[in-house]
């Protein structure tokens, strides 16, 4: 007790601050810095956060109105459709942005058709689904320019894509009515998103399998195909022996038959 009563007096006399005071000062300092920092950062990001939240809110409304009947109210999936938790914004941008979703009817696979939503609405849906769980994001614009190493892209395309999509990107048949679609004049963002997310029966080609730069090269190859006609002339859709064989059987053999008929017919 004595020490207690004499201690503050002594300390005052020597002009020293108590240990409690420095702790309090530290606290005040920390609070002030933290508070000011927090105030500033909130001010700086409030607008963005608010915008994303608003977008996601808008997306949630659209989701509940258009998608929830199959994918579930919390996008948890039902017997009719898979869960969307963790598919990411890229999957939504691809499926809705190409018109594949909402599906018109159940079938072997969802087919591309006129897009049902505006770009804003697609982005809103994507933003909402992205808030459910982490997943592939909508790709960076720098990979979608269509510029890159066309030769590297072509080699990767032949190795990883051509077996289903055809070496000229003309698409091809799979099993039981499913097919790999034509890749001509497809939006580069959709090509990229398809590789990252593996829509429907397409396998996933993640960034560790095909790096974003190589994805850009593949897009460069497909852009090259769009912009350059076949050096061999009329390519008949690039479908290979099917269309070329049909052409030969119908038109070439037809011409041979017609000439033979003309040769042997009597002049009038």
């Amino acid at each position, binding site marked *: 007790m004595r020490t207690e009563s004499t201690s503050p007096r002594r300390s005052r006399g020597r002009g020293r601050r108590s240990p409690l005071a420095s702790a309090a000062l530290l606290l005040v300092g920390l609070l002030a810095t933290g508070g000011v920092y927090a105030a500033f950062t909130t001010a700086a990001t409030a607008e963005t956060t608010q915008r994303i939240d608003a977008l996601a809110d808008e997306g949630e409304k659209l989701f509940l109105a258009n998608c929830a009947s199959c994918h579930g109210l919390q996008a948890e999936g039902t017997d009719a459709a898979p869960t969307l938790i963790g598919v990411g914004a890229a999957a939504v941008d691809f499926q809705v942005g190409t018109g594949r979703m909402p599906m018109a009817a159940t079938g072997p696979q969802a087919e591309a058709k006129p897009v049902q939503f505006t770009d804003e609405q697609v982005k809103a849906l994507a933003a909402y689904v992205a808030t459910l769980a982490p997943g592939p994001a909508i790709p960076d614009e720098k990979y979608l320019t269509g510029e890159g190493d066309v030769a590297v892209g072509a*080699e*990767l395309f032949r*190795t*990883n894509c051509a*077996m*289903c999509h055809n070496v000229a990107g003309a698409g*091809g048949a*799979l*099993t039981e009515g*499913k097919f*790999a679609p034509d890749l001509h004049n497809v939006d580069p963002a959709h090509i990229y998103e398809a590789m990252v997310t*593996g829509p*429907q*029966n*397409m*396998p*996933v*080609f*993640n960034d*560790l*399998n095909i790096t974003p730069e190589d994805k850009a090269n593949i897009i460069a190859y497909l852009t090259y195909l769009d912009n350059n*006609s076949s*050096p*061999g*002339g009329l390519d008949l859709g690039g479908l290979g022996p099917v269309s070329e064989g049909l052409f030969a059987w119908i038109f070439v053999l037809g011409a041979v038959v017609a000439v033979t008929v*003309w*040769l042997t017919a*009597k*002049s*009038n």
Partner: protein
Amino acid sequence: MADQGSAAPGTAVEKREAPIPSAGTAVVRSDRVENPGFPPYRPRVSDLDPKKERQNERRVAWFFWASIIGTVFAITAYIAFPIVEGDMASVRLNNGLLGLGIALALLSIGLGAVHWSKALMDGHDLVEQRHPTRGSEETRARAAEIFTLGNKESGFTRRKLIRNSLIGALAVMPLPAIVIFRDLAPAADPNALLKHTMWEKGMRLTKDPNGVPIKASDVTLGSVFQVIPEGLYDTEHPLEEKAKAAVLLMRLKPEDLHVSPGRESWNYDGIVAYSKICTHVGCPVALYEQQTHHLLCPCHQSQFDITHEAEVIFGPAKRPLPQLPISVDAEGYLVAQSDFHEPVGPSFWERVHD
């Protein structure tokens, strides 16, 4: 022609009578259909109307003129649209126009000739018998005489030593061809080549085409990797090795895999590796459907079910795709446990079937 001229139709061609069959070889048939002969000659418009005849004459001439135009066009186009090095479009234009010109030139000559013969040349039908193949008695006797004389002068039948040695020489002569063609086959026993690939214990699985090794964590669910063995391009014949060792790597949920006894350790946490070479005729099977887990061969539509160890569920393939047993090394990279346990690709004669 309107004016038939003095010669009777068809007399410009030498005709022969049908040969009389020798006695005993002809079968006389009483129910034989009588040859109705040719239908009566129907005059053509150019036979009747001199105006039409001149019109047809001009048409034939026009065809030949068109041929000349085609030739000139081909030469002009070849010079006017030269091939620019490095520009494929210029090759196409040059070749296309050149071909068009030459085709017009040749086709027009043909069309003109046919039209000429059909519309203006004599239109009567006639029968032209084939020449008999048997020579006249005189020719045959002369031929036999030449042979006998040749034999007498050369002594072919008399000098047996020469004759037999010549026959021997001719019989032996093709032997080098057999030796040469034998060497077209693989020098070593092809069976060993067909039964083994370059995969071995501890060899890393790398990405086709860049050879980057694959970590197990890189292979996410639903992924497909086109795989080549590590160091493939350092081998003597990389393409031949690749043709056997190409592998498709997929990750499924472990509970989706139906693993048969003895193969429990062949997959790594749902990551499975199968030979990409179809067991039917060896096409690369790489059309993987990530939801149905079916693998489709594009050549003959064989389908393999990856959930059931690539068993054949459709198509002409007879055997499942061989599975490559895999695991991970200390750094987390996927490695092969061994070579395939059976020969990859299509059947061959000495393959032991199970």
